[in-house]
């Protein structure tokens, strides 16, 4: 379990990183928290010619206010995301997701930029970003562009990030909705078999402005707009659960893996919706 040979380069500035990516991006991997990359290197599943370490670059970590919400720097560790006051104010869904991400040791090192850019279909943060309408900020030697999270995830471990791009931040519009992140996983800290990010404004028995994004069910973060619409339209969201779950089962793509069949995932897509709705109402209680 030793990595294949690679060249290690430490970028001390953003410009240095972008210049290295411009030249070597096709054959390079970016090292941030290393919680996915290091095992992939050790198992020789990733075989880059170069590893570009961005951990020493200043200004990539931390949360700042922007015009319509917050910008979360790519090097912000999961643990910091969970404790950040601005995140709690404008993107509480991220803090709700953190306890589901692996274990403390991984949360201490893992970064939001790494989790968003890896494109692991079972990861929590990509689904949060899609649900919250986040914009991912990609920098390259040619300039900076923003791309909606919903357009970013193309296939498992495949994103719209180009080889010369560095994901520098994720921008979350301030979202006052309640948030719930629920998972079905074999053990605490495991990759979910199916997970669900739900955003909504509970009001009495109703849920308004419902957004549902599943993860780990299929090959990408998987929105369930029909199910969300059924819940949002109902006078009593709980009473509409069965119908919404049925809609979610129809619209959410489910895959088979050694952990679970597609049929099990289809069942869990429906079962988790009830958990998420219960958590949304629970979170709204004074």
């Amino acid at each position, binding site marked *: *379990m*030793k*990595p*294949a*040979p690679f060249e290690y380069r430490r970028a001390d500035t953003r410009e240095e990183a972008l210049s290295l990516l411009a030249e070597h991006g096709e054959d390079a991997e970016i090292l941030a928290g290393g919680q996915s990359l290091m*095992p992939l290197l050790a*198992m*020789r599943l990733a075989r880059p010619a170069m590893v570009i370490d961005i951990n020493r670059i200043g200004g990539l970590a931390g949360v700042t206010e922007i015009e319509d919400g917050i910008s979360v720097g790519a090097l912000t560790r999961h643990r910091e995301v969970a404790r950040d006051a601005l995140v709690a104010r404008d993107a509480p869904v991220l803090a709700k997701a953190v306890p589901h991400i692996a274990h403390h040791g991984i949360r201490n090192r893992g970064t939001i930029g790494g989790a968003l850019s890896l494109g692991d279909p079972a990861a929590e943060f990509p689904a949060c970003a899609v649900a919250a309408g986040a914009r991912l900020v990609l920098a390259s030697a040619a300039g900076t562009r923003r791309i909606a999270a919903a357009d970013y995830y193309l296939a498992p471990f495949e994103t719209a990030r180009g080889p010369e791009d560095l994901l520098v931040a994720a921008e979350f519009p301030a979202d006052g909705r309640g948030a719930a992140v629920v998972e*079905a996983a*074999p*053990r*605490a*800290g*495991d*990759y979910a*078999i199916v997970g669900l990010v739900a955003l909504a404004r509970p009001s009495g028995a109703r849920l308004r402005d419902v957004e549902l994004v599943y993860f780990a069910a299929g090959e990408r973060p998987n929105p369930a707009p029909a199910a969300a619409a059924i819940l949002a339209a109902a006078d009593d969201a709980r009473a509409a659960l069965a119908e919404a779950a049925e809609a979610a089962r129809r619209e959410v793509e489910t895959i088979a893996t*050694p*952990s*679970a*069949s597609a*049929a*099990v995932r*289809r*069942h*869990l897509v429906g*079962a*988790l919706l*009830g*958990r998420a709705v219960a958590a949304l109402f629970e979170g709204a209680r004074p």
Partner: protein
Amino acid sequence: MTEPVTIDAPVGVPLPTARSARLVNGAGRFVADARPAGGLEVAFVRSAHASARILSIDAAAARAMPGVAAVLTAADLAPILKSFRGTHGAFPDLVAPRQTALAADIVRWSGEPVALVLAASRAVAEDAAELVEIDYDPLPAVADPRAAVAEGAPAIHPEAPDNVALTLIHEKGDVDAAFAQAAHVAELAFSFGRVTGVPLETRGIVATYEAGERRLTVSMSHQCPHQMNVEFAGLLGLDVEKVRVSCLDVGGGFGVKQQLYGDELAVCAAAMLTGRPVRFIADRLESMVSDIHAREHVVTGRIAVDGEGRILAFDIDDLFAIGAYSQYPRSSAGEIRSVIGLAGAPYRFCAMRGRARVVFQNKPPSGHYRGVGHPIGCAVTEGLVDAGAAAAGIDPLEFRRINLLTAADLPYASPNGTTFPRLTFPQCLDALEKAVDLPAVHRDVAAGRAEGRCLGLGIVAFVEQTSRGSGFYGDGGVAVSSRDSCTIRLEPTGGLRCLSSVTEQGQGSEMGVTQIVAAAVGVPLERVEVVTGDTAATAQGGGTWGSRCLAIGGEAAWHAGRKLRTEILELAGSLLQADPATLRLMDGAIHDASGARMSLADLAVTAHYRPHAFGGRHPQLVQSADYSPLDGPFRAGSGFQLSLVEVDVELGSVKLLRHVVVHEAGRIVNPLLADEQIRGAVAQGLGSALFEELTFDAEGQPLATTLADYRLPEASDLPDIEVVHAKAPPIPGSALGAAGLGEAGTVGAAAAVFNAVNDALAPYGGRVSAMPLTMGRILAGLGRVKG
């Protein structure tokens, strides 16, 4: 025959192991910490195919890589290394095909070693291993046990055209009549997922060869260094006394480190061929496809019960899939004998039929993982007993009370073919009812169910066979020792140096020996230094397998200690001009009726440096004893396990709410270490019940090769494990009167959870039959998804 004697503290005292502080401070000495000067590192080229013919191996590019010293294949090793077969004389019909350390012509599992690369570093060796080009002609592979015995399945070995390595038939009593007469018959199917032991420290070995003296020195992580010494010598054509195998700290074994592995043997051969020290430390990926696997069984069983709730008979059919070979040197056949010989073990019944088939498949070989067949025998028995109770309309614990063996039944020649001289179920049941308020548990379950919670309770009885005598391996022609030895030296300071053939993998066997020696001689605990794990230092002995270290090695230590004490008192009598019978040795001092007369240190100094002071007697100052249980094939522990679970019927997940073990195994040398042994074993049993499974695709490709896919139980997944020791006198036949207890936890844990989950699902009309109890299996068992 020796009978149990009174033994004082520190035997019976709960004490942490002396080595714990060193280990938790990071000062452990493991084989991976040793990097001999001039040594070579090994990476194996392992088969990517589960079944294929090797057409050619081209290692030219690998050999040409800078830093690579050699690339060796089966052909290179053949001149100095013999092949081997996992035979066993007790099973003369066992088909045990010949095996070589590296695959020669045909690979039979994905992960089988084909070549080894020797290089300056493991990284370079792995780089070079990628350049070894092997041309394979893929052959059809068989992975599923039922597929392996299906009509027309491809034969894995020509010697076993139907892939059946062995069929064992056992019949006692009139089984058909029992089932015909029975008031109630229940039948169940079971399947058990393939698992492995996953020690924290992976396998590792460093081998050094001195050609001039034909001397092989091996440091390895193993449970049985003397066994390996004999095997390495035999297979490499060396003299046993010129081979030395030593084990430093060993980070867990569980049976994984009890076998001989082709890759480790190839490392020794490589050291001989290159003349340089060779070091191999298995990484986790290769461990998952090269460590022994275990427990892949498909079983059907029936139980017959009469109108009064008495068990009449069991009928068991077991298919045990062992992978590509019978494991050398112990063979892969013992497990089925445990399954059959433990069917119905805690109970009184009159007839039994058992059929067990051992089948080959294109997977890694199966060996002896903690419990060896016991967990299967227990889960099948206890599942059937719950089903029998339900059929008879009797509460499951009441049903057990009717059928459990009592003192009046003993010794009990069970229809399963095993004779049990001593079991203690009445004492254990009493302890269970004292420790757990069972009526309150039942009330809580009923109340929870009324609130819509899916709760279930499982209580199972178990028997653990430990401390094996020499009949099984000795008569079977397998060079596995059931003896253990102990040599104790009195040092000039009055301290004792004790050389014991027991081995230590973290379970505390050294601590147990230390306590026994301190009590036997009469010295403070701190003055006993125990040396284990080195074949050049300790006399021959079996090491760790089958829960034997204290029951056997501890007995040897007791007798060696008493012999040394006798000599010390005789020497003291000579100096003090007193009758030795009037003297006692306590806390490192020689006492007479009036009090302490002389320190052991003073006596030792005199004996070592002024031996002329003893009136012509030669002080020996070293005594040895050896012990093997000659009085029977095993010593049995008895007990119960209780599991309380809650099933999430929407997600299919199981939450363990409570787990209790009641246990009795004769004298307990160290209650703290005994509890932790049981807890650790329970954790492994719970892992196999809920999480752990080595999954494969239909072509035999492994799907669980990392610890993300092979899910071990974590602390947060487990409840506190409550351990209760039932009280019973020491076991007759030895001074110590102890049975082993290292496997008890694994034996009943999965069975208890399995019964608890099925109890929980019963009100929903659900049932599960396959372990581990994954979400998918629970949901299928509830009929919520198609199975």
